[in-house]
């Protein structure tokens, strides 16, 4: 089974994140790391591959990332967790791509390398759009089995638990398919020392736009279908009232709620 896990390098959510003058994400001035929600996707890919191998089937986990040079750090981390190889879509022409053009570029890469199962995190912590699995399934013409809190492979079928607003759905589809996983589906493993050493020898293939057959006019700032008009720092909220509980804290909250007509 050919399992592809999509990984995005994002700015650390603890860092002060900014946009640059052209409205794109400032990736240079902050530390990057694997999008936290993608770690669950990597772990799920590794667990599915392990189960396949245990059942006597061949299985391989390929990491795919799109991003600048720095994104290689995230590839290393994913390989040290146990993925077998990686593909890095790396081209200056990609800078400023929006979700729509990113999905086009990734779909082209997936077409080149082939897949039985594509796994991604439910969203990235920087853009937080949560659209990539849906967009890729649409582009690739395969079922979308997204927002999974549980994944089960059963021969040519995949069954998941899809989280909904008020519970979950049981969902079934035929492979190949695109899966997105939610937090808490598993507990992502830490890379072992052995894993970190082994990752240094694992193959990482770099693809340019031309290598993946990507039309340069359809990606980057020029290919984006959306644009940032302006952006500003949110002004700090007007300072509120903070009181120390002197035995009447609950009464004070109630008075505030009553003054605001909440009770």
């Amino acid at each position: 089974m050919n399992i592809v896990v999509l990984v995005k390098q994002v700015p650390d959510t603890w860092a002060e994140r900014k946009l640059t003058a052209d409205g794109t994400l400032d990736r240079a001035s902050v530390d990057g790391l694997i999008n936290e929600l993608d770690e669950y996707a990597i772990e799920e890919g590794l667990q599915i591959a392990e189960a396949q191998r245990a059942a006597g089937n061949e299985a391989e986990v390929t990491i795919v990332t799109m991003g600048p040079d720095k994104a290689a750090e995230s590839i290393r981390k994913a390989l040290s967790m146990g993925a077998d190889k990686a593909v890095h879509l790396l081209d200056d022409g990609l800078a400023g791509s929006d979700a729509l053009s990113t999905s086009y570029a990734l779909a082209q890469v997936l077409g080149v390398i082939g897949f039985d199962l594509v796994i991604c995190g439910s969203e990235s912590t920087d853009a937080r759009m949560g659209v990539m699995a849906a967009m890729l399934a649409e582009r690739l013409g395969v079922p979308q089995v997204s927002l999974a809190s549980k994944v089960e492979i059963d021969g040519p079928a995949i069954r998941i638990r899809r989280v909904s607003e008020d519970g979950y759905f049981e969902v079934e589809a035929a492979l190949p398919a695109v899966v997105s996983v939610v937090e808490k589906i598993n507990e992502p493993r830490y890379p072992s020392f052995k894993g970190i050493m082994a990752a240094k020898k694992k193959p990482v293939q770099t693809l340019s736009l031309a290598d993946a057959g990507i039309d340069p006019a359809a990606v980057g700032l020029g290919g984006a279908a959306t644009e940032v008009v302006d952006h500003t720092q949110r002004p700090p909220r007007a300072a509120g009232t903070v009181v120390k509980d002197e035995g009447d804290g609950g009464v004070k909250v109630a008075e505030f709620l009553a003054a605001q007509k909440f009770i």
Partner: protein
Amino acid sequence: MAEFLVLAEHTGADVKKVTLELITLARRFGEPSVVWTGPGAEQAQARCAEYGAAKIYVAGDAVFDDLVVAPAAALLAQLVAEKSPALVLLAGNAQGKEVAGRLAVKIDSGVLTDAVDLTPGQGGPVAEQSIFGGATIVHSRVKRGTPIVAMRPNAVAPVPEPGAAELSPVSLAAEATGARVTGRVVAERGERPDLTEASIVVSGGRGTGGAEGFQVIETLADSLGAAVGASRAVTDAGWYPHQFQVGQTGKTVSPQLYMAIGISGAIQHRAGMQTSKTIIAVNKDPEAPIFELADFGVVGDLFKVVPQLLEEIGKRK
């Protein structure tokens, strides 16, 4: 007047509040046409009319419930081609955003998600988004195709205004494909409102000390008719189910009132609640960053403050 498509969120017969918000918003620009997938449009017609829907396109086929996301996107793409609307509005919850994403690919149009406001602008509507945990405000627009915008629930208040809400049957021209729903499980939530739609959210954090301590949060929520939320520390520890997590990797809420009880307010939590209209915090640590956001804060023991508050609410009812 330009036609605006609004994809309805509903429970079969009841139209959800977020859809009434979207209809209200669409009236700023033109004529709202609701797109209804699955059964129940007739029962919801009056409510849609009350909030100013001009039309309701009804695709009553069961396929919209049986298959995940794809048929709704296919129907919207078909209606965009037939009706040439000026904009498509969807609810910015997980499923709404997925429909928006697929639609964007189908019609090669730009998509904006998690908008908290939408205003007319040169070259089309301008969406306001609150990003990086609420630290940055961005205005964006779609520059190619029919703009697709997924709005954060509670971004605008629903305002009634009579509309015709004329039912207009439509059917999906293409064969529906996609992953099949084989079962549905609804989690126990009692009578509480949806977390993302609720006007009041009461959230508990590490300060509750455990599942037992967390019950005080539920009691307070029920006394206010509120939804219950939880910080990541709470859901990670298993004190409360994961689906109620508010924050960077959980749900984003924007209620009229957000009460953070025993929550320190790390940036990851703030990412999920910073656009709440009024914020109240109770925490024993005076240095807790949540107090920077709070309109009203009490430094104290939540197990003393909350029971007293409950008593006061009881007296005032």
